[in-house]
């Protein structure tokens, strides 16, 4: 029998970092991530890892130090949340442009103002175009597994790009859930030794990083970065199948839940998928053919595979925990772009839920399912974008 443990999401990720034992970790505390790096700093202080822990003065400095350490030839990790990720913004593009395979858990938190420390995906969505690979995680187990796989994807010889592992703040980071940890030995063998490429600290072969590339080739450089992203799909799938052999847990580019024979579907990221699956099971018992698609790899985005999974449906509701004010929300935009080329495609709804940690409850899923059923059976036109779970009064 497997040894199951009850831990918080942050504990699970700190444990993964202990097992991986990166060379350098530069971090700055920010809620709800603080608790993870504090635990990891304990591992450093207790001598359980050899990591050089750098306590810097801001997230901009944290990412800068990580880039330096990565260019120097080390395996590098950090973590952040919400405004911390926003402060890293300039350096995120430097990390991906310099091909630094940094791995960073992002514990999703709302952006100010108004000040809010709770779960919201606006932070990672703001960084979606930064050239980082993004893996999203429903629970502590998936986040732990994603974090271990992230090192293999980031450090793959043909990729060498940074990876964010997104996990919901508080809902997962601070809640206790059941975990199946892999042994230290298994994780270390899976992740393997780090092979630096063109390391700054290799004094036998000196190199300079970050020269100027202007109008003559910057355009070609960015095209090349885009092409590298295209090869991430195959590597992510290959790493996942090796991981399945190790752990018995199977991960695709996205999770498809009861979609094959469905008529309507929900698309949602991270922890809300758990609530949706429960309500989908209930609705199925009442004869409602509903399913769910939960993206795992959000950057690069697997447009064709997502369209294959959704195009047979009559209606799809994309639930976004972030917004693009005055426009459709980020996840909706991707799903719409996936489906547009298909002749047969569902009616699409965009519903904004859970901003700043607003609870996402079973009745919200029921309401969304009912709305989709109305759209399908009574051919009612529905507003394309709408906020749900709004308060009417205090």
């Amino acid at each position: 029998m497997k040894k199951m443990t009850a831990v918080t999401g942050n504990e699970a990720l700190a444990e993964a970092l202990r097992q991986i034992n990166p060379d350098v970790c530069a971090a700055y505390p920010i809620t709800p991530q603080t608790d993870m790096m504090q635990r990891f700093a304990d591992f450093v202080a207790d001598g359980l890892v050899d990591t050089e822990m750098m306590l810097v003065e801001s997230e901009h400095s944290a990412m800068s130090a990580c880039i330096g350490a990565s260019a120097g030839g080390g395996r590098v990790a950090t973590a952040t949340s919400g405004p911390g990720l926003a402060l890293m913004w300039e350096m995120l593009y430097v990390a991906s442009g310099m091909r630094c395979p940094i791995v960073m858990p992002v514990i999703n938190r709302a952006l100010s103002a108004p000040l809010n420390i709770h779960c919201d995906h606006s932070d990672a969505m703001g960084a979606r175009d930064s050239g980082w690979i993004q893996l999203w995680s429903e629970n502590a187990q998936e986040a732990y597994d994603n974090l271990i796989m992230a090192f293999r994807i980031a450090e793959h010889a043909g990729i060498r790009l940074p990876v964010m592992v997104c996990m919901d703040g508080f809902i997962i980071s601070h809640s206790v859930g059941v975990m199946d940890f892999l042994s230290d030995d298994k994780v270390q063998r899976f992740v393997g030794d780090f092979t630096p490429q063109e390391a700054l600290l290799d004094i036998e072969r000196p190199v300079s990083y970050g020269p100027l590339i202007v109008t003559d080739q910057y355009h070609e450089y960015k095209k090349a970065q885009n092409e590298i992203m295209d090869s991430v799909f195959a590597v992510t799938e290959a790493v996942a199948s090796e991981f399945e052999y190790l752990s018995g847990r199977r991960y695709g580019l996205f999770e498809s839940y009861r979609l094959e024979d469905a008529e309507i579907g929900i698309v949602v990221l991270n922890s809300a998928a758990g609530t949706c699956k429960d309500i989908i099971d209930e609705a199925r018992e009442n004869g409602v053919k509903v399913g769910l698609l939960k993206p795992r790899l959000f950057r690069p985005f697997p447009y064709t595979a997502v369209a294959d999974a959704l195009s047979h449906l009559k209606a799809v509701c994309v639930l976004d925990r972030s917004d693009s004010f005055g426009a459709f929300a980020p996840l909706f935009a991707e799903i719409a772009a996936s489906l547009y080329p298909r002749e047969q495609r569902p009616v699409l709804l965009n519903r904004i839920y859970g901003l700043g940690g607003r609870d996402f409850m079973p009745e919200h899923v029921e309401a969304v399912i009912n709305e989709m059923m109305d759209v399908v059976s009574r051919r009612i036109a529905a507003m394309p974008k709408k906020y749900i779970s709004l308060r009417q009064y205090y």
Partner: protein
Amino acid sequence: MKTRIITKSTCKPVISEAGNSAIFKTGSWRSLKPVFEAAHCSHCLLCWLYCPDMSVIVRDGKMEGFDMDYCKGCGICALECPGKKGMKAICMVKEDIL
């Protein structure tokens, strides 16, 4: 001048040879290039004087052409060129980049 185009396999902003500034050519920044018409040149050398990149080649006091490895195509030479009998000795044409 031939420049290697960046591809997927060379997509990394790393300079791996020491003393490489001598081989760093800036001519690829050009979108316009100067064309020299010797017949209209009085060898006043205003082009040589004004060129910010020392890309005007002068031998024995005579203008001979351009060093295209470093000419960025700013067009100052063409603007300053007084020419001969109303005809400029330097004109700018579109660089054929494709």
